[in-house]
């Protein structure tokens, strides 16, 4: 085992409750595991309530209801009510599809604090193509209803090569919809996005242009709308401080009750991720092999081990190290100090070639039929 027990264990602050892998959308950059169809089980209402109570007692305060599409759970309002009674700040992270005005009111009464709605693009044609479902108009209507009922609203747009050219229109759409926050989430290449990377990764020139436009707009809307810009780490020379450090802050519970230090950790070999049906959150967080695996710095290899930035970025992302280097202990290949940085540069070059030649492989959409092939 990599990490040793009891290294400065801080309590969880962020609980991501992935209520269901079911989703009416088929976004080809979904962060759910490729083989999600293997895990059709969902926790019961009582299981979720127990998880919420236990994590809150340890100090978790931000709670994300996510998925898949969390609205597919009929007990969502009951879970929101329970969360509110415990003192969580509840975030609903949704496609908006299937969100009626009645349900918006019901969730508000149950104590939901905030709704984050995703929109795939600024035009109906592209939105519906990316979502694999006709959702654009419904999402626009839902955004108006969210504001009408007094919620803070985050509009989340995942950015990639198919929509990055729409940056000016995306910004304008967010302003018109009255978003309080716009999350411009440059695609992170895990799960389905990793599979579709050649077709999704923008060129460096596209990133630079899009970021310039977003920065200028940020100043224009200062005081009205905040913009969160999720950095495209492939084009950086230092890795992200993934999850604020393994097992320090974030706790994800997958639909079947598997507890994960990040939502991609299921892809890592040999972690034996524990299930909330077998252990309490306290046991999982403090005692489990999984959550102690990459705590501290003992597990690190060179160049991380002797690096003076190791407590700043914690060696970057373990999933990215595994996906690119086949070694989850190695330095995140995004880092310019990594001997494997050439793998990231090759991925950028490959996507660029695919962009310039115009013959990218067709996108593989996230749905059960495709998932069953993994």
């Amino acid at each position, binding site marked *: 085992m990599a990490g040793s027990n009891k290294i400065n264990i801080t309590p969880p602050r962020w609980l991501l409750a992935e209520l269901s892998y079911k989703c009416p959308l088929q976004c080809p950059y979904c962060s759910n595991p490729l083989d999600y169809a293997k895990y059709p089980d969902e926790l019961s209402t009582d299981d979720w309530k127990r998880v919420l109570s236990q994590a809150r007692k340890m100090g978790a305060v931000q709670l*994300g209801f996510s998925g898949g599409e969390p609205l597919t759970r009929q007990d969502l309002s009951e879970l929101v009510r329970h969360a509110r009674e415990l003192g969580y700040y509840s*975030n609903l992270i949704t496609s908006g599809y299937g969100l009626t005005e009645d349900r918006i009111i019901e969730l508000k009464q149950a104590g939901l*604090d905030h709704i984050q709605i995703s929109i795939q693009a600024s035009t109906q044609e592209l939105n519906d193509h990316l979502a694999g479902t006709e959702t654009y108009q419904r999402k626009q209507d839902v955004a108006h209803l969210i504001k009408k009922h007094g919620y803070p609203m985050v509009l989340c747009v995942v950015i990639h090569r198919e929509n990055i050219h729409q940056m000016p229109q995306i910004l304008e759409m967010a302003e018109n919809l009255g978003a309080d926050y716009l999350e411009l989430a440059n695609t992170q290449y895990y799960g389905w996005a990793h599979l579709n990377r050649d077709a999704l990764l923008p060129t460096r020139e596209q990133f630079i242009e899009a970021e310039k436009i977003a920065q200028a707009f940020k100043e224009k809307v200062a005081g009205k709308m905040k913009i969160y810009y999720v950095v495209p780490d492939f084009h950086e020379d230092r890795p992200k401080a993934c999850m604020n450090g393994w097992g320090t802050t974030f706790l994800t519970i997958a639909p079947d009750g598997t507890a994960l230090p990040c939502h991609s950790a299921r892809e890592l070999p040999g972690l034996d991720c524990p299930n909330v049906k077998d252990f309490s959150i306290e046991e999982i967080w403090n005692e489990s092999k999984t959550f102690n695996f990459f705590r501290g710095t003992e597990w690190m290899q060179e160049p991380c081990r002797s690096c003076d930035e190791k407590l700043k970025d914690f060696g970057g992302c373990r999933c990215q190290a595994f996906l690119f280097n086949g070694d989850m202990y190695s330095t995140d290949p995004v880092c310019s100090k990594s001997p494997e940085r050439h793998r990231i540069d090759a991925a950028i070059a490959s996507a660029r070639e695919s962009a310039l030649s115009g013959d990218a492989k067709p996108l593989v959409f996230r749905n059960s039929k495709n998932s069953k092939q993994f």
Partner: protein
Amino acid sequence: MTINPDQLIQFSPLHRLQWEEAQQKYVILYPEGMVELNQSSAEILKLCDGSRLLSQIVSELEEKFATSGLTNDITNFLNVAAQNGWIQQN
């Protein structure tokens, strides 16, 4: 954005001010984020309930902590709070 001394100050309906037992401190909660507050910041924000002017907040806190000369510190903090969207004036 600066505080208008003639208008009531209220806490933003899009944020939540809450005591966190696990952290033994007040925090501001908002979409996917949290700010931890020190004691004096929390004392000021607790009085931003839409029923007080700047001068009333100052005098109440000066009385509570048996001190004087807090006007500048409180005004500066509330300006920052307004810029962050934690409080508002209508």
